[in-house]
């Protein structure tokens, strides 16, 4: 093969330069492989003005031909994405114009460098992020440990205050006037509240730090629910709220941590009573459904505004719904409930509308009835 033929073949098939021959009216007569890759397979016969992106309509054939030196022009790839080439136009002896288009290596190098820098930066950023995340986890563990220790060590002294004020109320009943007795009562009820709060904090810290092992055993959920209802009855009675149970089952065996599930029931029931007006009803329903034990606690209380629903199961968060008879509220109960249910591979959700009562529903994997 001749040297010029080899060169021709190479440029035609491999070079990253757009090469086209066009006639005096701008129609493409011939092109190399690269030009077809950039501009689409069927460019022969097309007009150069349709291949080049002309946003402003300022480009004319004459302008292109008159330009000396490479001209920055944009073309459109078959994917409809723009690419920039620097075009030169050379008249040949057979009245055709040779069109050459190349990219700027300098610009491409800059772009590559920027990509590399970006990539490195991204790697460093995600490394930082992981590091921070681990630190946060450790700090959270420390916080829980601290919380646990503090709550634990405060429990005894406060328990003492509580039982002493109870004792004094008994002992001094005849010697104190009403106002003084009230002070003692307040002392007792406030320390009771603190004790409840400390117990919840302790629970929370334990559960949060993953230290709580579930004590799994097989028991009858129906019996446990009935017991919870009995225990909460006195609080209901005070507000003239009746708690009913509704179920077609005569037992519902589950494998779960009995003490913890009792805690769940107690919080749901005490909430239902706490946030409802006197004279309403609470209905507890038990079912078995799709391999799950399903318990629902439904009240006729004020319901929860839709906007506030996402807050419910978060730590220390209370909604705009407040207790109706001045009961205490910490905002920890449902956060603990959710953690307990999650630990059992169950789920809990709420259905509620402002003004239309609330229904809390939780599912636990059932054992299957025997």
């Amino acid at each position, binding site marked *: 093969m001749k040297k010029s033929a080899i060169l021709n073949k190479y440029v035609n098939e491999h070079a990253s330069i757009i090469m086209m021959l066009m006639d005096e009216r701008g129609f493409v007569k011939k092109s190399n492989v690269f030009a077809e890759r950039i501009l689409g397979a069927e460019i022969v016969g097309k007009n150069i003005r349709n291949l080049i992106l002309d946003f402003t309509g*300022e480009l004319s054939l004459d302008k292109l031909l008159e330009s000396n030196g490479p*001209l*920055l022009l*944009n073309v459109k790839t078959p994917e409809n994405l*723009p690419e920039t080439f620097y075009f030169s136009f050379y008249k040949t002896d057979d009245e055709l114009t040779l069109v050459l288009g190349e990219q*700027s290596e300098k610009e491409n190098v800059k*772009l590559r460098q920027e990509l590399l820098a970006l990539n490195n930066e991204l790697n460093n950023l995600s490394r930082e992020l992981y590091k921070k995340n681990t630190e946060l986890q450790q700090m959270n563990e420390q916080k829980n440990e601290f919380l646990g220790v503090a709550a634990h060590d405060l429990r005894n002294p406060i328990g003492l205050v509580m039982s002493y004020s109870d004792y004094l109320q008994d002992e001094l009943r005849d010697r104190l006037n009403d106002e003084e007795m009230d002070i003692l009562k307040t002392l007792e009820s406030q320390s009771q509240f603190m004790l409840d709060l400390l117990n919840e904090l302790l629970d929370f810290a334990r559960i949060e730090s993953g230290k709580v092992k579930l004590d799994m055993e097989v028991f009858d959920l129906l019996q446990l629910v009935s017991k919870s209802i009995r225990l909460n009855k006195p609080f209901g009675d005070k507000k003239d709220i009746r708690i009913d149970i509704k179920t077609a089952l005569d037992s519902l065996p589950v494998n779960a941590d009995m003490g913890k599930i009792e805690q769940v029931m107690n919080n749901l029931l005490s909430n239902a009573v706490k946030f409802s007006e006197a004279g309403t009803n609470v209905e507890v329903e038990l079912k078995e459904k799709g391999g799950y034990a399903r318990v629902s606690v439904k009240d006729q209380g004020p319901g929860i505004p839709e906007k506030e629903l996402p*807050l419910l199961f978060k730590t220390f968060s209370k909604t705009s719904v407040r207790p109706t008879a001045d009961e205490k509220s910490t905002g920890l109960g449902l956060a603990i409930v959710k953690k307990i249910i999650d630990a059992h591979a169950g789920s809990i959700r709420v259905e509620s509308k402002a003004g239309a009562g609330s229904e809390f529903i939780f599912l636990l994997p059932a054992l299957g009835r025997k």
Partner: protein
Amino acid sequence: MITDQLYNKYFEALLDGDRQAVVATVNHLIDQEVGIRQIYKDLFQRALYQVGELWEHNKLSVATEHLATSLVERQMSMVYPYMFSTERKGRRAVVTCLANEYHQVGARMVADIFEMNGWDGYFLGANTPQSEVLSMISERKPDIIALSVSVSFNFSVMKEMVDLIRENFPSQSIIVGGQAFRWGGQNLIKNMDEVKLILSLEELESFIGNYN
């Protein structure tokens, strides 16, 4: 404050690919407590619009435009530390560019605006296939899906996407926006049920503020 002088210096550095200089400008503005919204609009958006103009007049190459866009995107994450401190609202928005839509900077700003208002803003990015948008909706159950359209020839894709969402999630709230509407297309939206057209970040913020 973003003066013309500061802007011009920034723009020059941007075209030059001088990342140190552009990063320094943004850091300086953050130090001065210039708001994120202002940096987005009066620095980033203004610069990219100017890039568009130069490009349109064949005064700058696609490579340089890529360089500028990539630098701007990098700088957008520089303001993240100041973005997530708002109280979370427990609401979600999925923000996406349509299939065949490669302009993603505006949509990213939209996702960030949601974040700044306490929402979770999931950003799906450029050229997102329709099936992926649909599966994101069923997965994330967003309160709002936001579609961004930059080039007019994607209006038909937008219509298709809206129809698909309607078919699969009849009650899904949809908003659309993007600079394609600078050149018309607003009538298209009027004929679509329950689709809201929002043209600017300010308008978007007041929309988010009134959303409940």
